[in-house]
């Protein structure tokens, strides 16, 4: 029995800049540690993060003080447990299933990918992060959700505004003013699309939810679409940018990936290496103990999957990108009831479609100055730019 050690000096700014050396030290010295700057107890070992995610009775997603509720103007499925969560999630899951991806979306995704690759100039240095990764993620998501009419720019802006609001732990006014405005815009657009989806039922998430035999309330349909916007652009965008960086800075691996067509492995290793969603919160529902450390009821734990994915218990040399490492399950998509609903889609869109098409189109592209790539983020992480010479 012991209380968790406290890391008084660690700041969110340090974690945002480069959390990985910090997590490595935590795994070795203080795997369960209180971080006052985040007002959370961090769990940095894979066995602990998985245990917590897999047990929603002891570790609830329902956080009564989450800024997410204020940002989304709704209690969303991300913060629900049990049957309530399952019902709302299953209402849109069919739109994300491998079968529907195959029958409805795969050809469309290839067309979109071709279209966005066609726009890239040859022989110049282009920031692939803003010119490709973000827009293509937005376009694909717009179709999956049934928001075909919405522009890439609006999709990306709404997503960022929702994320900023959901991460507004200090409850400052400004981020919520922006999320309120975005909510009003989204609601108006959703209202305008209801007649189309009712008249022409299709496999988009919006249509599937609207036309279900036993539909969930309209307020939750809207909330689900918003969660998917907030949670469905950054991750494929950052995953794609991270993997491109990993391959271009490891040319020997890139050659081998091309030879074996090991794009799926390149994808899995990329999201293991730098998980686009690095950390999640769970509220402890009763006094308990994790590995000899007292954890009081009501405390919020932060499962650091970014750290779990480099845990020395599972990975040799986990700090480096290595497509051909010994396989071990990673937690980039989480675990338990809230396991990422977009896992199948991201594997197919990023792993099976975007990566091979990009490297086929620009077989000699180069990242001449990898040191200019800026990485950032504590909750969400990825490169902020990717200046690649296309030829």
């Amino acid at each position, binding site marked *: 029995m012991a209380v968790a050690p406290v890391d008084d000096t660690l700041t969110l700014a340090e974690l945002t800049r480069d959390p990985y050396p910090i997590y490595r030290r935590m795994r070795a010295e203080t795997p369960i540690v209180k971080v006052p700057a985040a007002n959370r107890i961090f769990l940095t070992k894979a066995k602990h993060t*998985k245990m917590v*995610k*897999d047990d*929603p009775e002891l570790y609830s997603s329902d956080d009564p003080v989450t800024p997410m509720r204020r940002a989304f103007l709704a209690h969303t499925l991300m913060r629900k447990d049990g049957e309530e969560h*399952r019902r709302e*999630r*299953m209402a849109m*899951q*069919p739109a*994300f*299933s*491998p*079968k529907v991806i195959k029958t409805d979306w795969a050809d469309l995704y290839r067309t979109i990918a071709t279209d966005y690759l066609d726009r890239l100039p040859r022989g110049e240095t282009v920031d692939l992060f803003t010119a490709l990764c973000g827009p293509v993620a937005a376009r694909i998501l717009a179709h999956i959700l049934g928001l075909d009419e919405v522009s890439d720019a609006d999709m990306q802006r709404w997503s960022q505004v929702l994320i900023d609001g959901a991460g507004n732990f200090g409850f400052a006014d400004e981020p919520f003013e922006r999320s309120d405005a975005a909510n009003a815009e989204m609601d108006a657009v959703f209202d305008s699309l209801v007649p189309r989806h009712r008249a022409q039922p299709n496999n988009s998430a919006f249509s599937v939810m609207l036309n279900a035999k036993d539909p969930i309330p309209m307020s939750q349909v809207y909330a689900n679409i918003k969660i998917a916007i907030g949670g469905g652009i950054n991750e494929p965008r950052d995953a794609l940018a991270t993997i491109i960086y990993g391959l271009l800075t490891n040319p020997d691996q890139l050659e081998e990936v091309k030879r074996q067509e090991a794009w799926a492995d390149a994808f899995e290793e990329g999201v293991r290496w730098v998980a686009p969603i690095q950390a999640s919160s769970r509220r402890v529902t009763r006094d308990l103990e994790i590995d000899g450390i007292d954890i009081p009821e009501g405390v919020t734990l932060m499962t650091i999957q970014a750290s779990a994915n480099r845990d020395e218990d599972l990975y040799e040399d986990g700090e480096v990108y290595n497509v051909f490492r010994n396989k071990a*399950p990673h937690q980039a*998509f989480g*675990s*338990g*009831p*809230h*396991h990422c*609903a977009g*896992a*199948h889609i991201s*594997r197919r869109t990023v792993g099976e479609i975007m990566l091979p098409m990009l490297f086929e189109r620009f077989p000699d592209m180069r990242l001449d100055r990898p040191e200019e790539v800026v990485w950032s983020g504590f909750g969400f992480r990825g490169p902020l730019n990717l200046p690649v010479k296309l030829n």
Partner: protein
Amino acid sequence: MVEVTFVQPDGSRITVQGETGASVMETAVGHGVDGIFAECGGAMMCATCHCYVDEAWAERTGEPVLGEEDMLECAAAEQRATSRLSCQLKLSGDLDGLIVHLPEEQA
């Protein structure tokens, strides 16, 4: 202990001993059987532990539980009458000798 045999799509077989009360998924993962991913850890949220119960055992394993059918429809491989999520198949003495077939793909 309960004996379970996993048959890979290429026909190769591995037989392991599972604990009574454990799920077929847990038994597979615990023994490092390829082809069961179980990404959601048994929460019936991912359909990456999909298996086909051998015809001879299908009656004894019974019907999918509430909600399982919906998730099976999201599985990567073809859904058949014998499709189950292996996280929902609990081992008991009745199932000693159980044979399950693994699909071509899970994710």
